[in-house]
Each structure stands twice: as structure tokens, then as C-alpha cells.
């Protein structure tokens, strides 16, 4: 299974991507592609460059070399909001919510692309403005019911439990109507029950036709949830394949074991 980078069914293609910080190569000549409707996992030890990769894909930082394509459209070095506009949404490793907003208000921010955020129609409250506002609110009702937060919509988002805060983040990301959803360690710090429920949510999201690219540490989660895994270490791709193949791959074992020994 060698990866071919003119893959038509790929929603995201990363080609020979590199990014250094000072002398450290955070991402080094990395290439992989994500097939449409897959749940694709990125795994690797701490500091392997996973979050840097997400920041590159979403335009938060720009790569030194290489290219990123979204359904064969070049999105390398585009601004984050432009990339979001093209259908990529994300959650953050450290949950980033708006401190003064309720759950409903937070998710409403996610409908910015849907309502357009134009100023003059807003001031004159044109018919199309009011229609869009109504549609946005209906959409949020749908999403909040889907993620199971409808009853908490008037609570301040930042005051919810950790698991529910993550749900708010996911709901906000879904509100942008993404084709590709990037989840950066979404179950880190969750208890078993929360993890289990979130995993169910992810596969439900996936069933709606949204491709998921997920960074995770939890091997159980990765093995049950994803159908393709890319292992990276020191910013480079170690190995790629379906879970069955990755589980027992010597290079993967070595990468993780090597770390374990270093810790001991």
C-alpha cells in the first residue's frame, strides 16, 4: 500500500511538508493523504509534530516547504479563516472557548460563514439577514440536540464539565458546516465514560459524511474508531496503514517502547 498523491478520493493531501522552529524540524518532509469519509488517525509520541501538523493544515502557521491540498485545491499558506471557509474545521488541544458566552452563543459563532457577517444587512435588518439568522438558530438547535447539549444551551460554556466543554467545541466546529473535521487529542483528560461517549459522537459525525482527522494517544480509541492510521515521529512519517497493520508494526512498537524506556 504505497501512497499515491494524485488520489481522487483524497479530501486532504499533504505533500513533502516541512516546518522548522529554530533548529528543530517539527515536521520533516511529511506526505500523506486523507480519504473522503474516513476517520484517519495521526498518532505518535509527544513532540512528534502532530499539533504542528494541524496548525499547518489550518493555516495558523505557514510551512517552510511543501504543499497542502484540499480536494485538489491548493490551500498552502492561506489564512485560517479562508481555510475554514473551504470546509476545514477544528478543535484545539487545550479547549478554546469564549469565556463570556453561553453554549448557544458559542455555537452561534460557528455559523459566521453561514450568516456571512455582513454589516449593512445587519443594520437594516433586511429580509435575507433575518432569514439567515433564523436558519442559523435552527441549525444550532439541530447541532446542540445532536451533541446532547440542548438542555444546557443557556449555561456559560466555560463552566461545564470538561467532557461537555469538548462537546461545545465540537458543536461549534460542526456549525461551520465542515467537510473535514480536525480533532486534536479530543479525549485527553477525559474519564473512560466520557471517552466512550465522545467516540460514539465521532462515529455519528462521520456517518453524516464528515471526514475526520484525529490526533490521539489512546491506542484503544484509535484502533476501534479509525480506518486509517499515520504514525509520525520526529516530524517524519514512520508508517501508515489500517489499524490491524499498525498495531503490531515493529517500527511503531519501537517508537513507543523507546519512549517508555527513556521515561523509566
Amino acid at each position, binding site marked *: 500500500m504505497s501512497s499515491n498523491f494524485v488520489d481522487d478520493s483524497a479530501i486532504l493531501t499533504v505533500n513533502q511538508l516541512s516546518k522548522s522552529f529554530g533548529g528543530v524540524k517539527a515536521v520533516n518532509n511529511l506526505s500523506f493523504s486523507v480519504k473522503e469519509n474516513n476517520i484517519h488517525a495521526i498518532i505518535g509520541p509527544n513532540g512528534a509534530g502532530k499539533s504542528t501538523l494541524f496548525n499547518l493544515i*489550518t493555516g*495558523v502557521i505557514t510551512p517552510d516547504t511543501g504543499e497542502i491540498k484540499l480536494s485538489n485545491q491548493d490551500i498552502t499558506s492561506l*489564512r*485560517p*479563516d479562508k481555510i*475554514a*471557509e473551504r470546509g476545514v*474545521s*477544528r478543535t*484545539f488541544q487545550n479547549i*478554546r*472557548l*469564549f*469565556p*463570556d*458566552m453561553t453554549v*448557544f*452563543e458559542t455555537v*452561534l*459563532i*460557528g*455559523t*459566521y*460563514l453561514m*450568516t*456571512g*457577517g*455582513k*454589516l449593512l444587512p*445587519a*443594520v437594516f*435588518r433586511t429580509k435575507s*439577514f433575518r432569514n*439567515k*439568522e433564523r436558519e*442559523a*438558530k*435552527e441549525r444550532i*438547535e439541530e447541532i446542540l440536540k445532536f451533541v446532547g447539549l440542548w438542555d444546557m*444551551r*443557556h449555561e*456559560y460554556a466555560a463552566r461545564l464539565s470538561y467532557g461537555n466543554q469538548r462537546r461545545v467545541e465540537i458543536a*461549534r*466546529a460542526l*456549525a*461551520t458546516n465542515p467537510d473535514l473535521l480536525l480533532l486534536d487529542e479530543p479525549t485527553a483528560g477525559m474519564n473512560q465514560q466520557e471517552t466512550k461517549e465522545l467516540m460514539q459522537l465521532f462515529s455519528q459525525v462521520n456517518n453524516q459524511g464528515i471526514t475526520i482527522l484525529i490526533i490521539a494517544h489512546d491506542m484503544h480509541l484509535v484502533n476501534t474508531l479509525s480506518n486509517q492510521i499515520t504514525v509520525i515521529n520526529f516530524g517524519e512519517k514512520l508508517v501508515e496503514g489500517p489499524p490491524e497493520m499498525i498495531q503490531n508494526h515493529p517500527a511503531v512498537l519501537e517508537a513507543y517502547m523507546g519512549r517508555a524506556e527513556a521515561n523509566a
Partner: protein
Amino acid sequence: MELIKRSAFRKSVLLLGGIALFLLPLGIVNPYFMYIINLILIYAILALGLDLIVGYTGQVSVGHGAFFGIGAYVAAILAKNLGFSLWLTLPFSIIITAVIGLIIGFIGLKLIEEYLVMATLAFGTIIWLVFLNWTDLTGGPMGIAGISAPPTITLGTLQFPFIQYHDYYPLLLIFVYLGILITRLIIKSGFGRACTAIRDDELAAQAMGIPVFKTKVIMFTISAAFCGAAGALYAHFLHVVSPETFAFGMSVTILTMVMIGGQGSITGAIIGAAILTVSSEALRETPELRMLIYGFLIVIMIMFFPKGIMGLFQISKQRLLKKSIQVEKNVVEKEGLSYEQ
């Protein structure tokens, strides 16, 4: 249903109160009090304008006194040299301050927050020096006097001339209402929400597709335009403009209004404007002391009451919200209603 009734009740109370405020001059005999109240209204527009960028978008400017000044000087110059009335100078003041606001915003908002403060400070100082030294146009330290009063408004057989302070009050009040209305329309829209998102978390806002820089620049422009409008009203109300009014102290005063009243709150901006106008008048004889007190107040507010006076009410508001959810739940269960936000 109960909830809808309650909000309708609230709306009619606000409407009646708003209309009742027009009758205020009937109870005030002393023209000096009327003068102060009129000043409060002008400052309220300034505070609403600055709050748009500071309170709702999280970008601190200490140069908005300059936009106020530009609005006032544009009106003064057009009124004196070309004989324009308020109805003509006002749009000019708004457009010119908006354009300058757009330019300053475009340059300044590229910078990180601390440098934005420096840039607006520099801008304010430069504009003040222009007022002071471009004597041919601005009258230098003497300023411009003899700016016309607004033309008499005729409604059928009724005539409303502008002679005493009492006459200006309804006009200024209408402009404050207009300012409140525009602020509300902006805030309760995708654009306004985008600003709040930027204030709270720029990175997350951008990930939601919000063009951060553009949104900030637009809001900065609107904020400058508010100050321009206030400037034109000020010029035609006082009939005189002079540079010291629009020095650095003015920018600090407007910022203090927003800080004390509560950032990101319309009521807060107006309360702040009222408190600061009255205290400025009380401390009129000792302007140095005034700046000292304001500086001290800003520090205290930032350290202990970052949400200002309105922040103190927020806890009870949250309680009220919880209560209304309970009511709403009962209603929904009973009538199968779906209620949004």
C-alpha cells in the same frame, strides 16, 4: 408564552421611559444643569462609540479624543467658512472621521495590543498638534468660535428654534437613541458576534472563518464615526471648539467612561458618561487632579472590577436567566413550543 409576554412588557417599559425622558427639561429650571445633561448625552455617544472597539472587540484605543476633535473641527470649519448647517456638517464629520479611522485602524490593528495603544496615543497627539498649530485652518490655540446653532426645525405650524440649552436636549437625545439603536443592531448580528469572538479568543474566532483583521478594522471605523458625529454635535451645541478640549486627557476621559460603566454594555457606557461628565465639571478648577483621579480609577477598575459597574449586576442577571429557563421549560412542556435563545 409567559416569556414572550415578559419581554413585551420590558419593551413597552423601555419605550415609555424613552419617551418620558423627552419631558425631562420641563422639570429643570437651572440652565447650567441642562447644559450638563446635554454634555452627558454627547459624551454618551462618544462612550458608545469607543465601547464598540474596546468593550465589544477588545482593542484598546487611547486616541479617540482625536476622532471627537476631528468631527468637531470639520463641523466648525465647514460652518464658519462655507456656512453649512448642522445637517450638512454632520455627514461630513462622520465620513471624514470614518475615513481617518479606517486608515488608522488599518495601520494600528496590524500591531499587537500594547503597540496599538502606543499607535493611537501617537495619533491623538499628532492630531492635537495639528489643531494647535495649523492656525490658518483651525484658529490655533484660540480655536474657532461663532459656530452656528442648528437651524430651526419646523413641524407643521410648530417651530423648534435652538436658543437655550433646553432646546438642544431633545435633538441630542434623539441622537443618543440612534446611537443605542445602531449599537444594538450591530451587536446582535453575525458581525457583532464575530467581534466578541475576536475579543475572547482570536485563534478560535479565526478557525470559525472570521476574518479577524478586516472585522477589527471595520469596527474601528464605525467607532471613529460615532466620535465624529459626537464632535459635530458638540461644535454646534457649544458654538466654539478649541484644541485643549481634544488633548490626550479627552481620550483618557472617554476610556474611563467605558471602563467605569462596564465594557461591552450599552447601559454601562451611558452610566460611565454620566458619572465622568459630572465629576469633570466638579473638578473643573483642578484639571491636573482630574487626570490623576481618572488614572487611578482606571487602574482600580482593571484590577478589581474589570466589568465595571454593570459587572456588579451580572450575577443577578445570570440568576434571572436561570429562572427564565425554568419558566420556559414549563411552557415548552405544556405547549410544545420551541423557543430559541
